[in-house]
């Protein structure tokens, strides 16, 4: 028998879920609201929630002062590039771990994950020096490469999990049908793993888009993405909350919209294998 849920119980659950959801969303909402206030209203005490004079002045100031388009373009190149590069490396890696595991495969997976436990600042110095040597400081390609490395363990892990769900017999059938390794991965494995690959792409794009440590430390002007664009509005001389909020809103808007449209895919990807 299905568990009976009373209407009252349902109402309580729904209210509770809404509260949690709004709590999580509140900082973003507050940022968006603040971006439409004047600087004075933005720091007024007590804070004003909805009833203020809406203005788009902050946006025009931000647009005048900085070249939003260039930051946006850099973000797209860095997040997109690192994601695509990462996927290209991770698919063969995850294939080998899922379908031809060795005795040490589990250890390699754990080792890869362990690199994520190291605080990024721990390797800042060596990487910074390397970047100086290689002339990659403030270079989009250098940053793309670093972000790819940073997220590679997660991409490989996710793909490995998806690939494990694919019956090995189908790949064997492809081998019997005359497919070499390249054809097997290209025509059989990849199309079958599309939902998994898509959600990995999405998640990784979001992670790379939001990454702030490396993007702030390894760029100055040329390669600076939107994270640096936000940071440029938190000045030590005084905080311009409204402008900072406008910059933040502009930085998160693209990813927020993308996330909204692909949420179904994302959720499916993240719970893939768990529900079956």
């Amino acid at each position: 028998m299905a568990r009976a849920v009373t209407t009252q119980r349902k109402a309580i659950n729904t209210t509770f879920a809404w509260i949690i959801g709004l709590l999580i969303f509140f900082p973003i909402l507050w940022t968006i609201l603040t971006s439409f206030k004047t600087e004075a209203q933005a720091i007024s005490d007590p804070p004003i929630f909805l009833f203020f004079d809406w203005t788009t002045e902050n946006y025009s100031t931000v647009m005048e002062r900085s070249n939003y388009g260039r930051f946006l373009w850099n973000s797209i190149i860095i997040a997109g590039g690192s994601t695509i590069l990462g996927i290209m490396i991770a698919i063969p890696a995850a294939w080998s771990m899922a379908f031809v595991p060795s005795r040490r495969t589990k250890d390699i997976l754990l080792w890869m994950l362990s690199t994520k436990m190291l605080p990024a600042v721990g390797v800042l110095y060596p990487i910074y020096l390397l970047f100086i040597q290689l002339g990659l400081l403030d270079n989009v390609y250098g940053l793309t490469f670093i972000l790819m490395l940073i997220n590679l363990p997660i991409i490989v892990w996710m793909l490995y999990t998806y690939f494990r769900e694919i019956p090995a017999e189908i790949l064997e059938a492809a081998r019997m049908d005359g497919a070499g390794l390249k054809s097997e991965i290209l025509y059989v494995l990849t199309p079958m793993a599309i939902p998994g690959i898509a959600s990995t792409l999405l998640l990784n794009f979001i992670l790379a888009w939001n990454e702030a440590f490396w993007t702030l430390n390894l760029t100055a002007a040329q390669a600076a993405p939107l994270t640096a664009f936000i940071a440029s509005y938190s000045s030590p001389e005084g905080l311009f909350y409204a402008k900072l909020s406008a910059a933040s809103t502009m930085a998160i808007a693209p990813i927020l919209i993308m996330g909204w449209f692909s949420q179904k895919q994302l959720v499916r990807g993240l719970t893939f294998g768990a529900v079956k």
Partner: protein
Amino acid sequence: MGQISLNQVTKSFGDVQVIPPLDLDINEGEFVVFVGPSGCGKSTLLRLIAGLEDTTSGNIAIDDKDATALPPAKRGLAMVFQSYALYPHMSVRKNIAFPMKMAGIDEASQKAKIEAAASALNLTDYLDRKPGQLSGGQRQRVAIGRAIVREPAAFLFDEPLSNLDAALRVGMRLEIMELHEKLKTTMIYVTHDQVEAMTMADKIVVLQAGVIEQVGSPLELYHKPRNRFVAGFIGSPKMNLIDGPEAQKHGAATIGVRPEHLSVSKTEGLWEGTVGVAEHLGSDTFIHVHNTGLVDMMTVRITGDIEVRHGDKIYLTPDSTQIHKFDAQGLRQE
């Protein structure tokens, strides 16, 4: 085309040797069935031939060419899997076309071959469907279609009918046999079902723990099982194997009598027992007889129907020309 020889082939997984050194020759055009209980290494053997597993030692030759180190794609064999292993994201047409696409065959010939395979396998109406929209039997036909269009040196079947229901299984069995008659291509077929083995094979290879117990035609195996294992494995219902004094009377450690070689009487006979369960099939009756003092239970097969009830006293007499004798090692004595 389609001659396969295995020479001193072994396979180990880690420290466990699943196939001790094994020799086997499969002739061109033969229908060979590997049969044995589960875990006997029959699927492993097939996968070694396919190239899906590497041999630990020994070599495999296909048409007199050493294929031991060749990848599956280069061996020119086609395989039908138990789970069908169709490509779920491709239509039936694309599934069947896949091996030809891999071989670089031009689209026009691909099309002609797909049409031919589809009409031979009654799949013409389903060519644009995805495997998920097909029934089990249809999926298995697609898998066979995919194998046919390759024009392989040999077909490998890995328990292809186990996922089908009983009625479909009999139908598909006939279809595969007809296919063999038509194509005359070597076929190697793995099954644990000895009925499939008996009905389909030109040659049966009985395996136990990776060791070939006997190779022979179905009737050779039935009439002259080389040892106790084959005697017990081939034939349905199973052969009655009797140890002890009764066997010694025949100068053997064990004697075997097939259920169909026992005659039944309610009044007199060599061995006396009581009726346990009687299975009435209409054409035949299987009677399970207890308390013979020879074995726990003996099975008798009677053609037609017979009126027996649970607990009835019954007499059994073996056909003296049909008694199989085995020595203490379980080997056949003549």
